[in-house]
């Protein structure tokens, strides 16, 4: 009969009108500035640089200016200049560091590829989303100081992922130390050579790079093992 479809439709809208007052499955609006919806841990916005300590962020950046992220970045929004000298990192090892590390957030498309390709777990995705600024030119181009955030902050926004990263880094460090020790022991047995310390210093670097060489590829299964 003419009109039944219309009446059915009117019934649905009436149901929703009433439902919006008592049914949270229907009324899903979150009134944003007052109420902020919880972010899932995986949420990503713009990258930040992980530093080991909050007190001395520039001195303890994990980044060694390898420029892999700069090359892989799809919109080419990362700009890195390597240092000429080396500085000790958090573990006390001498490393090259970035003198300039800038990310243009007006270009960045939050794709997370820099995070996946980084062999040193030094760049991660931030979760700060209220980033609007009035400045078109200066404010959107973030430099090293603005990008650096501590490992503690990383733990705060992504607890499970950060714990896993820390565990992996610690294991690698331990393995590297043992390797160095073994090498030193082997060298002690052999007649000493003047060039001995340099490969030992390089080793941990290499060993860290190689398991990550396949990059994020090796990472997800490790995460998947948890559930």
């Amino acid at each position, binding site marked *: 009969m003419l009109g039944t479809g219309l009446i059915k439709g009117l019934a649905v809208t009436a149901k929703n009108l009433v439902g919006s007052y008592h049914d949270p499955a229907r009324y899903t609006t979150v009134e944003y500035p007052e109420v902020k919806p919880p972010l899932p841990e995986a949420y990503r916005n713009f990258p930040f640089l992980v530093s080991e300590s909050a007190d001395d962020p520039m001195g303890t950046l994990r980044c060694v200016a390898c420029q892999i992220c700069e090359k892989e970045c799809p919109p*080419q*929004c990362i*700009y890195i*200049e390597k240092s000429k000298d080396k500085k000790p990192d958090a573990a006390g090892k001498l490393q090259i560091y970035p*003198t*300039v590390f*800038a990310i*243009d957030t*007006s*270009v960045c498309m939050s794709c997370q590829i820099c995070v996946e390709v980084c062999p040193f777990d030094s760049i991660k995705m931030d979760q700060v989303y209220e980033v609007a600024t009035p400045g*078109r*030119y*200066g404010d*959107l*181009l973030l*430099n*090293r*100081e603005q990008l650096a955030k501590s490992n503690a902050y990383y733990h705060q926004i992504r607890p499970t992922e950060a714990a896993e990263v820390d565990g992996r880094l610690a294991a690698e460090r331990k393995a590297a130390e043992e390797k160095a020790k073994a090498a030193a022991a082997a060298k002690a047995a052999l007649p000493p050579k003047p060039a001995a310390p340099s490969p030992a210093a390089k080793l941990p670097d290499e060993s860290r790079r190689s398991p990550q060489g396949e990059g994020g590829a090796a990472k997800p299964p490790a995460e998947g093992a948890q559930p």
Partner: protein
Amino acid sequence: METVEQLRDRLLARFPGASVTVISNPSPSAQHSLLLDHAHAREIALYLRDEPALKFDQCSNVTGIDWPEKEITETTKVTVPDPAGGPPKVVAQTTKRREPGYLEVVYHLYSLALRQGPIILRLRTGNRADAVAVPSLTPVWRSCEFQEREVFDLFGVTFEGHPDLRRILMWDGFKDHPMRRDYAEPDDYEWEPTPHGDVLAKAKKHYPEKPAAEPAKEAKP
């Protein structure tokens, strides 16, 4: 489904004067293709569409490829007799050869009726400058209409017999063909605060004074 070789033989038997070449594809996908000559392309296409055993009724994908002129350097070892009368020397001789460039149009055909495919057809232009015409397959498959326009627009291939060959993605007054490998983007650069060196240099050229200097300072803490 027939292999590409079988199909080529079938086509050559059906169209004696035609030139049908198999272009083999070394990748694991093993999607080989057939290079057709211009004179018979549309007949062959019609045959592929209408022959009951083939029935390639849908042309799924049409695209162009630009193969620019390549300079191929070949090094050959030649034995040169020593003019001084000594023993002949082996000299590495490099010859440079220019392989002419061309534009290629690729058609991916599928048969919805017989659920088979893809058959990949290729058409090549004579060069990249003045002999850029290939026969249009729009009369055979309607789906080529917009896609051939796109190839015309972005690669500069002219399709003979296309009902409405105009630019499609770029505007009518646009001059170049942006998907060609040697396309130089116009220097209508709009300044953005990117820190990249080459872009920054360009930016400085366009915005010589204040705005370009500022971010450079910003980027270097």
